[in-house]
């Protein structure tokens, strides 16, 4: 049962990912990305990570895709809706190959198949997140804050020049 679900979800994840890079319409690419991300949420469910699955749906399936489409709608899509390649593709190919090598090596070099699935209680998760892992958690929010301020500065800089 678990294997069956995994195969279905993996097909959706990879198919969605493939769709993102193959389709020539930006909005369609965003929709394929949604399929892929929701399928990943399903994969988390199989791994007994309910909380992570819901966070995936809330943040990636909801907020990020909406903001993405919002940004696409605000840009002048009529001028370049069908661009799917540019001059940076050799660089992107190198980066993708490097990530592939790292992931492949990581997959071959571990024994995750033997670890027993375990579904932590929500309260335990919260306790460990705000005691043991409090500093990394706060650093992650700091990164978001820096990104926010950076976005404002970039937007304001454009305003001054014009």
């Amino acid at each position, binding site marked *: *049962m678990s294997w069956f679900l995994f195969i279905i979800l993996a097909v959706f994840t990879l198919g969605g990912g493939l769709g993102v890079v193959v389709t020539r319409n930006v909005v369609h690419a965003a929709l394929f990305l949604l399929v892929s991300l929701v399928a990943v949420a399903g994969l988390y469910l199989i791994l007994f990570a*309910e*909380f992570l699955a819901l966070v995936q*749906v*809330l943040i990636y399936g*909801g907020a990020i895709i909406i903001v993405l*489409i919002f940004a696409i*709608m605000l840009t002048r899509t009529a001028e370049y809706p069908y661009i799917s390649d540019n001059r940076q593709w050799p660089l992107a190919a190198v980066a993708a190959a490097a990530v592939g090598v790292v992931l492949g090596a990581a997959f071959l070099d571990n024994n995750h198949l033997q670890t027993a699935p375990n579904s932590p209680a*929500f309260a335990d998760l919260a306790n460990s997140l705000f005691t043991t892992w409090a500093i990394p958690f706060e650093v992650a929010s700091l990164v978001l804050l820096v990104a926010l301020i950076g976005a404002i500065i970039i937007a304001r800089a454009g305003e001054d020049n014009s």
Partner: protein
Amino acid sequence: MPVAVPFLAVTILEVVWMVVALLAMFTGLSVVVLSLTWLERKALGRLQQRLGPTRTGLFGLMQPVADAVKLILKEDIIPNSSDRAIFWAAPVIVVLSAFMIWVTIPAAEGLVLRNLELGLFYITAFAVVGILGLVLAGWGSANKYGVLGGLRSAAQLISYEIPIIMVVVAVGMMAQSLDLRVIVASQEQIPYAVLLPLGLVVFFIAGLAEVGRTPFDIYHAESEVVGGPFVEYSGAHWSVFFLAEYINTFAIAALVTLLFLGGWSWPWGSAALSWLPSLPDIAWLGPLLHLVWFLFKVYAVILVVFWIRGTFPRLRIDQLMAFAWKVMVPLSFFAIVITAVYLFYDWPAWTLTLMSLTGLVVVGYIVYRKMMEPARRIAEVKARQAAQAAQRQASRQTG
């Protein structure tokens, strides 16, 4: 081999049972939507000194059926220039997320499709996905009013999602759980509406914005964007959006009831009913009474929603966004802070009520001042003009 995957049914019997339960939920919600359309027409009619529907059946009770038949028989037009796949997918996304939410909303102690430990979080997560459908509907119909409406809905719904989630966090802190049944059980004695009135007000207002009811219906405002994302939809496609909107309204009312009005628990707990002659000991009687009481509360909240629709004018988009970011978000953070202080120092319950009422009154007064400012300016200018005119007249008389 049965695997205990958390959300997913496992054995064949359970799968069949889930399908039956889902169908029952779908039917129940459809009946609720029909009743809501009738109720809205009647309530709005009465508020505007009309009778509302009277011709179809007793008290116009068959009006929703007539509407449904008309909508289904209507020609379903798909614009040539629309993006066909997205035009089709958008209503499906909207209605799926509306139904997904109801999987974990309990209508009585045992009357829930699948109770989740993270129920409240699940609801907020899937409510966000519905926004996507509206944005896509606007984009896919290749209509500038549709796109404008889609942009408006994205901006509005994401903004109002933040106060909702923050207030939900405060409620989760009070109940020490995100399980809706535990939250209701912890309000057995005092509903959270008494302890945290601030939370109730913020959640209700943000909930209205989230389902796009009047005063916050600017993303499908007929006079500005001619229906917004729905402008190109007709017939069955349009009615799917309509269905989702009413289901979402009902869900917000049900959540207000569950989170703040004590769900299916009676006022002052079940002990208050001890004077009644003891009920015959039938297993289904208790849940039935709970269900009736729950539905009574939900419909009362719904009537307030309709009342607001009949009373308030529509906001402007800049007012709407300013209200979200300058009033609702700070207030919801304030709700979390006072709840945390109250829980950490273990203060008596009335302090929380006092703190949240203080916050409400202060912010309410500031908003009132802001709203009254144009009127005050006009009065100032008029007074100055009157003084000048009087002065002019006086100088003319002397000169």
